[in-house]
């Protein structure tokens, strides 16, 4: 069947399965990805079907996982690496930033680094420390890395395929609190470009731009605003590096207002860059300054406070009101 309704988790699992089937050079690596199928079961059943040589349980060492993935890529493999949780990518950060990101440039373009690093990220699942972070800016800031995040099952399936096919290293952020959300996946579709944005809802009064877990919140905010007679356009950015500024610009030239929403801290976040660029590009179109809604300059709080910390419907609608009040 060409179209199926799947959870994001299952879509990712299907996507990995397809990649393993299509290219014998594709490898899955990470902690607990084998028998257990990963702590979120994204690799469920893959080791059973493709064996321990293709779906590799690694020692508990993130620098080792990414460092050896680089070596495997040098040897012609296409490793898809799982980092168990956002907060545990940092032991590998050195390898990602000093080695993975720069190999292509240092080799004058002769070496390709087709490595995908999958990271379940962001909050909202009531976890303990280091399990709910949004470190995307730290990767988007690094030249040589591409950074993406799907918000729905179709994108989960297709963007992961595209990331694996990419000859550049891709940091693939999976919104963990959306893993169990269902959506339609058309297995025969021609997918959107990996780094293009998508208009998730059309509107005329104001644009909300978001990615990953916040797309759903923005769609709910748009629906709530519609009841008050406000027409809100929602853009799913999908990619944080590169950012589809043309897509945002087109929307802002229509609506004349922009609010960028993400869970990561606002200070020096992806939203800051978008605000700056869109202000440059659309200065004479804007009716209000570009506003940002996101995390605070504070460590991710304990679970009992995350509802207050994470941007919810009210905070997004508040920003919409503030923008419209200009």
């Amino acid at each position, binding site marked *: 069947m060409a179209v199926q309704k799947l959870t994001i988790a299952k879509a990712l699992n299907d996507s990995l399965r397809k990649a393993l089937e299509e290219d014998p050079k594709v490898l899955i690596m990470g902690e607990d990805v084998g028998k*257990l199928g990963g*702590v979120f079961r994204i690799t469920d059943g893959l080791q059973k079907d493709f064996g321990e040589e293709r779906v590799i349980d690694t020692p508990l060492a993130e620098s080792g996982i990414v460092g050896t993935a680089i070596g495997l890529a040098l040897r012609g493999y296409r490793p898809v690496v799982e980092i168990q949780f956002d907060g545990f990518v940092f*032991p590998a950060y050195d390898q990602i930033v000093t080695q993975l990101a720069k190999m292509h440039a240092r080799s004058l373009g002769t070496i390709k680094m087709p490595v995908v690093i999958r990271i379940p990220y962001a909050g909202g699942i*009531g976890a*303990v*420390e280091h399990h709910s972070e949004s470190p995307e800016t730290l990767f988007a800031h690094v030249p040589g890395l591409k950074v993406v995040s799907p918000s729905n099952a179709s994108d989960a399936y297709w963007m992961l395929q595209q990331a694996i096919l990419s000859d550049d290293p891709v940091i693939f952020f999976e919104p963990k609190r959306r893993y169990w959300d269902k959506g339609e996946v058309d297995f025969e579709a021609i997918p959107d470009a990996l780094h293009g944005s998508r208009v998730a809802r059309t509107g005329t009064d104001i644009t909300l731009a978001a990615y990953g877990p916040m797309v759903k919140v923005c769609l709910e905010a748009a629906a709530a605003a519609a009841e008050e007679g406000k027409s809100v356009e929602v853009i799913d950015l999908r990619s944080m590096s590169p950012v589809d500024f043309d897509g945002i610009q087109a929307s802002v030239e229509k609506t004349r207002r922009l609010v960028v929403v993400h869970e990561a801290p606002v200070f020096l976040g992806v939203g800051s860059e978008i605000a700056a660029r869109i202000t440059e590009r659309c200065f004479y179109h804007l009716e209000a300054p570009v506003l940002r809604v996101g995390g605070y300059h504070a*460590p991710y709080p*304990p*679970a009992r406070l995350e509802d*207050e910390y994470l941007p919810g419907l009210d905070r997004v609608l508040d920003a919409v009101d503030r923008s419209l009040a200009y």
Partner: protein
Amino acid sequence: MTVESTAARKPRRSGTKRPAGAASAAKPAAATAKTHDAEPQLVQLLTPEGVRVDVADNPDVAEFAPFVADITTDDLRGLYRDMVMTRRFDGEATALQRQGELGLWASLLGQEAAQIGSGRALRDDDYVFPTYREHGVAWCRGVDPTNLLGMFRGVNHGGWDPTTNNFHLYTIVIGSQTLHATGYAMGVAKDGADSAVIAYFGDGASSQGDVAEAFTFSAVYNSPVVFFCQNNQWAISEPTERQMRVPLYQRAQGFGFPGVRVDGNDVLACLAVTRWALERARRGEGPTLVEAFTYRMGAHTTSDDPTKYRRDEETAAWEAKDPILRLKAHLLATGGADEAYFEQLEVESEALGKRVREVVRSMPDPDTMAIFENVYADGHALVDEERAQFAAYLASFEGGE
């Protein structure tokens, strides 16, 4: 008795005290996937049946036995009580998680002897760097067990002042704390103090670069630190063979300090070996790696499902080595305690369970503005600005509508 099983009771050590090529040196791993001894050699002072090991029989055990020569029947009862109370607390926490009072719990079930034995070896002025499962060590340090639950309930990221009991906050990022322990020990040495530092970590953690770097630093600076690895056989779903090809304790040798494997389900042996290692540290002889060979009887955490990756027979085999039953058998056989004692302990542990339940259920959620507290010691303009904006935002709801 087979040759293997005779050897099974002999401890093996590696490290600086032995000449190269001595019996303890690591044999090169055979080219098979599984390189770990089925019946590992380990220091044992109390058999699974609760019988004290005859030291005369066992010259290598003899090196450690003097470190518990002073143990009285009262002390044995104390160790027993520690283990029972810890298990009761742990069981209560698991139940509270099931009831939705805790978001998560990392159970220490099965690891009581390793934690109580090592924890009771410490002096008050020693310093402990735990992971996230060291509830028994916390108990030995006098940390109120209810304080351990805040982070698992999601009301804080710590819950106790580490300097009160010299028991550092739990560390979730695997292996990080071994470097902190090493640095702390470097400071202890610089200060000329004679206290020691102990770092707890798991078999999986030993694969992390941080742990290798902690070994390196502690060795070259001869720091007074004991690396206490609880090899509970599993790192979530990955068995120890997925972390290393040689027995864990032998890894110390390559860094230039001794490693000892102790029966982690034998509280007496854990006490003796840890005291031995701490004394080395105090005497200025540098770090030691202790591998407590034990087993995690439960799931990795309450969100894990061990049936996906391990066999029931394995768990059942370890049940026979239960650390608490073994000491109970010993106490009963030697007249160290009678049924009345165990009954009274039951009452005491029930009371602990009840208190834990009550405290957890009445644990308040943190104040919302706590998000902005303690981000910096000296304050920060951006935090001040965001705090004020957030307060104004919250105030906009009050009396509104």
